[in-house]
């Protein structure tokens, strides 16, 4: 669990906004919600029934950052859900309570930019929904390129094209419409920043296109909230307490530690923020994060338990 105080919230509305996406409105129960910055997310804790696992997933806040009467998140039902999105879709109804972390932001707009180009894939539209009110208020130049499959995703696409008019380009793959990313990127002026949120393949594609064209890497921003991917099971030993835990193939190391009531600070649960860094005493690590530098990964002395795993059968952490 995070070391920061959690906020308890009540689900005030649930809306099916696309075949595979549900939107949840959250209202504070005993405190006031704080305003947040565009691109912020919260980690939602889903406490299941007794003997059921607790899930924690990060979701972008998609409501207007100035509106502190409620937060809204959108959850895509993942075909290979490890539990979180399934829980949100099937177990959560209006009136239910959830715990959320205070908003944290690892994907804020670069306000020095002369122009903002947003690439959204499917439910990856959510962080940009919190960008739009502020981009419009600041009269910033921007364009949104929204790629989806209307048989699964595509939430808000009609409203967006209506309100944003020519600043919004929709690409529905189920209707054969594709975004030519290279063409979009090629014609942008000096000072343009690019933002990508969506499946890994979209992030990779935008980054590779930028690199090939000679667009500075620091002008490309992306949000990876894919969550921990499964891997081989392994055993982790905690050297200070002597505790040994088995990490199942579909659980992350962080989740396993949390399951044993070991508190590790964390914000993103996706290998980006760096909060959950742990010292490694023994064992090879399969690094999967984008936080540690190459030399740090090579050293084998630190790891990010939210996404990274043991490369072998055993790992000893200095905690």
């Amino acid at each position: 669990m995070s070391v920061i105080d959690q906020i308890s919230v009540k689900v005030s509305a649930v809306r099916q906004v696309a075949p595979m996406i549900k939107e949840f409105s959250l209202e504070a129960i005993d405190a006031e919600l704080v305003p947040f910055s565009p691109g912020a997310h919260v980690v939602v804790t889903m406490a299941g029934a007794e003997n059921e696992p607790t899930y924690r997933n990060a979701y972008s806040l998609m409501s207007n950052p100035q509106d502190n009467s409620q937060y809204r998140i959108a959850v895509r039902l993942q075909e290979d859900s490890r539990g979180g999105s399934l829980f949100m879709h099937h177990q959560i109804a209006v009136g239910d309570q959830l715990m959320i972390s205070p908003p944290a932001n690892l994907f804020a707009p670069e306000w020095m930019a002369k122009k903002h180009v947003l690439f959204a894939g499917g439910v990856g539209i959510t962080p940009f929904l919190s960008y739009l009110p502020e981009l419009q208020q600041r009269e910033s130049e921007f364009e949104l390129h929204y790629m989806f499959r209307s048989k699964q995703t595509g939430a808000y696409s009609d409203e967006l094209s209506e309100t944003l008019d020519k600043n919004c380009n929709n690409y529905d793959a189920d209707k054969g419409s594709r975004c030519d990313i290279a063409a979009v990127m090629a014609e942008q002026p000096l000072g343009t920043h690019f933002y990508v949120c969506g499946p890994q393949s979209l992030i990779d594609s935008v980054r590779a296109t930028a690199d090939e064209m000679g667009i500075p890497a620091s002008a490309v921003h992306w949000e990876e909230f894919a969550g921990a991917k499964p891997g081989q099971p392994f055993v982790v030993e905690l050297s200070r307490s002597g505790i040994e835990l088995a990490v199942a193939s579909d659980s992350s190391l962080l989740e396993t530690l949390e399951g044993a009531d070991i508190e590790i600070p964390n914000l993103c649960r996706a290998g980006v923020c760096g909060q959950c860094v742990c010292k490694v005493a023994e064992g090879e690590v399969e690094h999967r994060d984008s936080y540690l530098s190459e030399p740090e990964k090579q050293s084998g002395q630190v790891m990010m338990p939210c996404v990274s795993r043991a490369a072998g059968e055993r790992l000893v952490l200095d905690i």
Partner: protein
Amino acid sequence: MQTEQLNGVVSKPAYSPVILNPKSRFHLFIAEQAVTGEMQSLFDGCGVEKEIAVYSDASDSRLLESLAAIPLTGTLYLAGTEPFIWRVASHARQAGLRPDQIRMMAPVSRERHLFCCHCYQITEGVTYSPFICSGCGLSLEVTDHFARLHSAYFGYQANAEDCSDMPEKREVS
């Protein structure tokens, strides 16, 4: 831009050898007063669209125009004194360039601009510490804290408790 830690002061710029950005479609080379040998050989080795120009004033209006005309895929190379290259870099960032689009060659001289925290005057041509402020006349300790906004090093009154006891004069590098 090279801003690695040096001598424990994070803000003191460190300069590593400059190479051409192989991905860039356009290269702009700007030198102060005269093109250095290092810059000339980089320019000669550059096979794509390129321009080279010499200025004495980092805020020259033609220079600002050419910075604004750099494409998103361009790279800027700078040679000259430290205050000059950082001032041009600052204009370039205003024009929309990212730090990783700006490559600076090691300054041609070790002369510093010194910002006085008492009178806010910038004293030029500083090579040793303490140094007399051209604004208020105080003896300033020359620190390694480099302010990118002013392209100058931070200075404060040396041994303010006892001005009759000045620290020994030392060269700054």
